[in-house]
């Protein structure tokens, strides 16, 4: 049976799609059969971040409407052979995802994969609800910023109340905080909420911290998930996230302002 992980946030533009791509790639790198699904109907960003936009023929919506089989819509990742992408439609509206249709596809994916990663749209309405409904675990992507923290808190309320697990009275969804676009220097200057602040406010276990980095743009320019940007802060931070998700202990990195140069960064300090 696959584990279903939703990457969610409430607020848009905080790094859900970036995280979904990196996280799914990280799981696949470790040998897990992984599929990452784009639930952001109408926008369709995930295939761009994964760099497979030109290979999209059929999508999630086609499968739900019986216009294509699941196997026809799944796109194999160009870098990792056990990673697949299920893209969404750019043209249809967000109501094209039906509750029963999503359930049917999820059930079929369950038998083929170890991990199903769901890239949620922003908001707290139907699209976001469908993305989180089947989750066993949630990665709540949060920026150190007032509206993002507030929206994360609202999503936590929804995870606890509106998911399948909640409806069935099963064990609650495992919640993980992922703080992204973190700028330690600005935190030190008192201009940005600190990791401690956000943890104190949201009170869920921390999965990791992804620093603000220009590498993300370089990665998305090329359609390469950030975890493949070898040796970069963000790649290492995302590797740590995957390791912690799988139960390994990893000390936090990139949460202090850098005082020193490249070698110090490489060898710790």
């Amino acid at each position: 049976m696959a584990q279903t992980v939703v990457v969610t946030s409430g607020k848009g533009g905080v790094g859900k799609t970036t995280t979904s791509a990196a996280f799914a790639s990280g799981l696949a790198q470790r040998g897990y059969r992984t599929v990452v699904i784009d639930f952001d109907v109408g926008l369709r960003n995930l295939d761009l971040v994964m760099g497979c936009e030109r290979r999209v023929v059929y999508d999630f919506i086609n499968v739900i409407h019986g216009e294509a089989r699941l196997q026809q819509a799944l796109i194999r990742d160009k870098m990792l052979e056990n990673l697949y992408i299920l893209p969404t439609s750019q043209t249809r509206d967000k109501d094209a995802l039906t509750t029963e249709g999503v359930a049917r596809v999820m059930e079929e994916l369950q038998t083929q994969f170890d991990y199903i990663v769901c890239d949620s749209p922003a908001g707290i309405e139907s699209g976001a609800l469908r993305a989180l409904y089947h989750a066993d675990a949630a990665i709540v992507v949060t920026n150190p910023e007032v509206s993002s923290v507030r929206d994360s808190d609202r999503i936590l309320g929804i995870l606890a109340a509106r998911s399948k697990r909640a409806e069935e009275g099963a064990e609650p969804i495992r919640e993980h905080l992922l703080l992204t676009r973190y700028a330690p220097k600005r935190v030190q200057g008192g201009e940005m909420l600190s990791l401690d602040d956000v943890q104190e406010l949201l009170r869920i276990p921390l999965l990791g911290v992804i620093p603000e980095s220009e590498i993300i743009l370089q990665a998305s320019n090329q359609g390469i998930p950030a975890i493949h940007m070898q040796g970069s802060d963000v790649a290492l931070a995302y590797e740590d996230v995957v390791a912690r998700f799988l139960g390994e202990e990893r000390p936090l990195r990139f949460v202090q302002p850098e005082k020193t140069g490249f070698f110090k960064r490489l060898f710790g300090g």
Partner: protein
Amino acid sequence: MSFLDYFLGSRKKTASVAKDRLKLILAHERSADTPDFLPALQEELLTVISKYMPVEKDQISVHMERRGDFEVLELNILFPEQHSPG
């Protein structure tokens, strides 16, 4: 003090302003979706407690809050000095 000084000076503290605002916002929003039996519960608690000690309505507060995987029901009863039990 120039405008710039003012700006730079206040910039230093904006993170703590953000945190204080968030504390209030979250506390408010978390209590906003409290179950609707809370007022009735508060009423009944008042009746029961005032059988044993003098207590006013505004000395009792009942809150429901989500903390991670738990719902926490918080009951606060404020006793003025002279009414302390014992």
